[in-house]
């Protein structure tokens, strides 16, 4: 379980997150939705210890992200909004191996895991390709492979559909759903479009750094959406 307890955070003077209390249970598919600048990315980065609270706590399976960066980070994978900047090596299979090298796994197991991961995401054909030559959708799958290979319990996707065309959007959403259902990975999907909520069990709406709504998706109504500035245009 990932838990934010009375979480406050500020980059400069002003608080960007203002007293967030949420619990994300294992196995579920949670969407965090909010308008631009509502603090979604800032919140998501707390789950991965990339940011730590100014006040309050974030716990990943009971581990305080402030106290044990490494262990909490190992449990939570992160696919960035700018996933292109997430790829470190030029050759796909080497990039996927990067995190595994950091974990100091043995060479043979790294090789095998890289292969299996690429296979799982159906991008084995990209193994030897140069990431600079891939399409955006493919780059995103490689970024995901690099995260998935490390076998995290949770994966955060920060606006995974924003940069993609309709076909790639559907594809990545399908892959995310599969990870949740088949591989039992807890999904935290950060988004600002209502379309992306289709597979979510639960929705958390952020507005100006506070939780405006937290509950089942089917209980959402237009009034709340309007209030969050998320109504369909």
């Amino acid at each position, binding site marked *: 379980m990932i838990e934010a307890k009375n979480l406050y955070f500020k980059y400069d003077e002003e608080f960007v997150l203002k007293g967030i209390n949420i619990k994300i249970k294992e196995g579920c598919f949670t969407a965090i939705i909010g308008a631009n600048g509502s603090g979604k990315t800032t919140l998501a*980065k707390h789950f*991965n210890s*990339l940011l730590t609270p100014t006040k309050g706590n974030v716990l990943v399976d009971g581990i305080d992200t402030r106290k044990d960066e*490494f262990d909490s*980070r*190992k449990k939570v*994978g*992160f696919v*960035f909004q*700018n996933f*292109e*900047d*997430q*790829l*470190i*090596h*030029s*050759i796909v299979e*080497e990039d996927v*191996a*990067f*995190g*595994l*090298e*950091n*974990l*100091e*796994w043995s*060479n043979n197991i*790294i*090789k095998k895991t890289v292969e299996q991961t690429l296979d799982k995401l159906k991008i084995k054909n990209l193994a030897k390709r*140069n*990431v*600079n*030559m891939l399409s955006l959708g493919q780059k995103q799958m490689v970024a995901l492979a*690099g*995260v998935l290979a*490390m076998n995290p319990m949770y994966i955060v996707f920060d606006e995974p559909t924003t940069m993609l065309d309709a076909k790639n959007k559907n594809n990545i959403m399908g892959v995310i759903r599969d990870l949740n259902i088949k591989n039992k990975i807890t999904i935290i999907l950060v988004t600002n479009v209502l379309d992306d909520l289709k597979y979510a069990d639960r929705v958390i709406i952020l507005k100006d750094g506070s939780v405006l709504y937290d509950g089942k998706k089917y209980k959402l109504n237009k009034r709340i959406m309007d209030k969050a500035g998320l109504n369909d245009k």
Partner: protein
Amino acid sequence: MINKLYFGQYSHKDTIVHKIDPRLKLIYVFALSVFIFTLNKYLGILFFTLFVLLIAIASKISMKKLLQSLRPFYLMFVFLLVMYLIFSRNQLNQGIVVIWRFLMLLIMSYVLTYTTTTSDLVAAIEKLMKPLKIFNIKPRNIAVMISITIRFIPAMLLQFERLRESMLARLANFRNLRHIKLIMLSALEKMFKSASNLSDAMQSRLYNENAESHKIMRLSSNDYISLLIIAVFILVIY
């Protein structure tokens, strides 16, 4: 052009030179580079040249491509020659030798990058630097730095090109100093943003400066034979 940037000169071929352990290849290039500078006799230099060309042929390098890749340096060679002609005509021989040595260095590095992928080279550098760990230098940091440079330079150039086009589309004029400043600043801003994302990404992927590349490099009988050939060559010519 972009293709060249991404892949360097590497060309996937099935030759003995391609198969030699990249660590050894790096060492050979280094050793031979030092060696050519100790050679003074013409006969030695001639044999050296033949040896290097033989290796180039064994790597299935097309001579036409090789000459093409050296083209940027021709002007420099001509310039050096002219300098010798003007200022120290009596040392012209010396000048030709200097240029010749330089040419050998260029051909050897061409052979190296033609037969070895950049990522193998980076991994080899990392492995070769392992002993530096006792001086608290982390080979992983250096290797990852090189990899990131190779990965992001083409991306940066592409981004710069996009920025340039979008400014041109809005009638920017790059003879105008203000516009040059503007494109530089925007490019820098983008670069810093990418760098900050990258550093986040490395942290989130648990970057560990004590880790090692997972590439397995083990010397095979081929490698030992190559070692023997190079050693014998150096000893005989010397």
